[in-house]
């Protein structure tokens, strides 16, 4: 039986807006198996990024449950949630969100520092080399191109080798050539390390590389399809 790494059940998020409640996500249920790659696609405003944020415990749903690696995310306390984020997931943002005052190597070392991992500097250098930025470790984010910043963000997300990688429009701010490098890295980790990948994208070509595509529309699951044949 396939082990589910992520199980989302009847997830609903309503936010107050202008004196009424706005439904951002409506009764969303989704399972992601360990080692699977799942793309959440849909138009802007369909709630796909919000879904990713809820899985990471960055926001609290109005109702529903999210279980990730056996942990009920919505019931975790602050400390447990921080530990959950450190140990269970890596998060890649569309806008990279590198810390501007830290060098590339220091940015990659942040999760290692937070987890108290030994030799963070050496490990950060190793991770940067893995994304082809061995010689850019001492550069600040402002001195890097968009593609380089996203590669640093990828190295940071994978620093603690999490079982789940959440990627929110990872190529949204990049041109197609640079974006392809990022996508290749994401799927390479999935193949080589078995990292489960849950990504949100507008990009049809990127979505097609995932094992499964879940379509969201107006906060509801509008459809789902599996990839017909494996990508060569």
């Amino acid at each position, binding site marked *: 039986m396939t082990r589910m790494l992520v199980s989302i059940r009847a997830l609903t998020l309503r936010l107050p807006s202008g004196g009424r409640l706005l439904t951002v996500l409506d009764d969303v249920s989704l399972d992601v198996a360990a080692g699977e790659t799942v793309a959440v696609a849909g138009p802007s*405003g369909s709630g796909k*990024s919000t879904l990713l944020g809820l899985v990471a415990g960055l926001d609290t749903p109005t109702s529903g449950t999210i279980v990730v690696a056996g942990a009920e995310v919505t019931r975790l306390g602050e400390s447990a949630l921080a530990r959950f984020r450190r140990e269970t997931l890596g*998060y890649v943002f*569309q806008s990279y969100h590198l810390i*501007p*005052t830290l060098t590339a190597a220091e940015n990659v070392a942040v999760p290692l520092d937070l987890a108290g991992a030994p030799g963070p500097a050496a490990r950060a250098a190793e991770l940067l080399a893995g994304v082809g930025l061995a010689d850019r470790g001492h550069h600040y984010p402002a001195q890097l191109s968009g593609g380089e910043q996203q590669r640093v963000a990828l190295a940071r997300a994978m620093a603690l080798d999490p079982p789940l990688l959440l990627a929110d429009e990872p190529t949204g701010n990049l041109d197609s050539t640079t974006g392809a490098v990022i996508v290749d890295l994401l799927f390479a980790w999935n193949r080589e390390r078995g990292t489960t990948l849950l990504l949100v994208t507008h990009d049809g070509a990127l979505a097609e590389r995932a094992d499964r595509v879940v379509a969201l529309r107006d906060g509801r699951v509008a459809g789902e399809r599996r990839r017909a044949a494996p990508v060569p």
Partner: protein
Amino acid sequence: MTAAPRLAWRQARGAWRHFVLLAACVALGVAALVAVGSFATTLDRTLAREAKALTGGDLEVRAARPLDGESVAALAELSAKGAFVVRVRELAAMARGADGRALLVEVKAPDAGYPLYGRLELAPPTPLAALLADGGAVAQRETLDRLGLRVGDRLALGAASFTVRGIVEREPDRSASLVTLGPRVFVAGDALEGTGLVQVGSRVRYRALVRLPEPLAARDAREALARHIADPGVRVASYDEAQPGLRRFFSQLASYLGLVGLASLLVGGIGVASSVATFVRRQAPTIATLKALGADSGTRPTFMEVTGHFDDPAAATCRAVADPDADPEPAITPLAP
């Protein structure tokens, strides 16, 4: 080093301008207050140290008319106990040079023995009595300059004419009063009568300066004198309470400067608060990112914080839903490095 101090150090390194500004504001404010405090203390000490010289003696008896019988008797009693008394008269008068130029001056006519405390610096360095004898006068350099005179020339005061014999470089009991009517001219006490300036109605200040013998305390002597002298027009002051106007002025100046210092500190504080607020505001995305990476803290980051919607998450979501073409997760505002 654990993660938190290491991260804090790295953040501080990137925001050194904020910390320099903060330190500069605090340092400047504190320095201003300390400077004002030191200035006031130094002034007070100087006044205390120079009090006898500024007063002209241990005691000063001062009146706007000639000291009458009871004052004279009281001073005579003090003299009998070993005190030394010098009488000084001061008045404002017009001095004229040989070419007819006139200048308002402050005339001082002391008896022999002046000054009791401090040094009267003269050029040439000759005793005052010797320079003033036989119709001599000494004046501040300004007097001579403005009247076009030199040492040796004649200077007229009222009906009398004097020979300028020297220049006053420094006068111990000429207090740093805010207003003076003119530069100083010294003439001998007995020569003042010849000028015809001392008449009924003249604005003459009569002073008696007293140097007390060792066993007599200035305050006790002052109280004894004050008991003897009933005339309210006669003011008796001991050196440690002299120059009340000057002390009050300096005290008010110190208070004013202190207020200015406090105001500077307040303005500096606003600068510090603004700098810190800006720093913290700029750190908000970093803090949110750190939390998303698993940093432990008491505040739970929201998804909107991490993606840059710090102010109104509902409004941002509402925008996204209302306008499907709009980017629902706009890029976070890039931070200045």
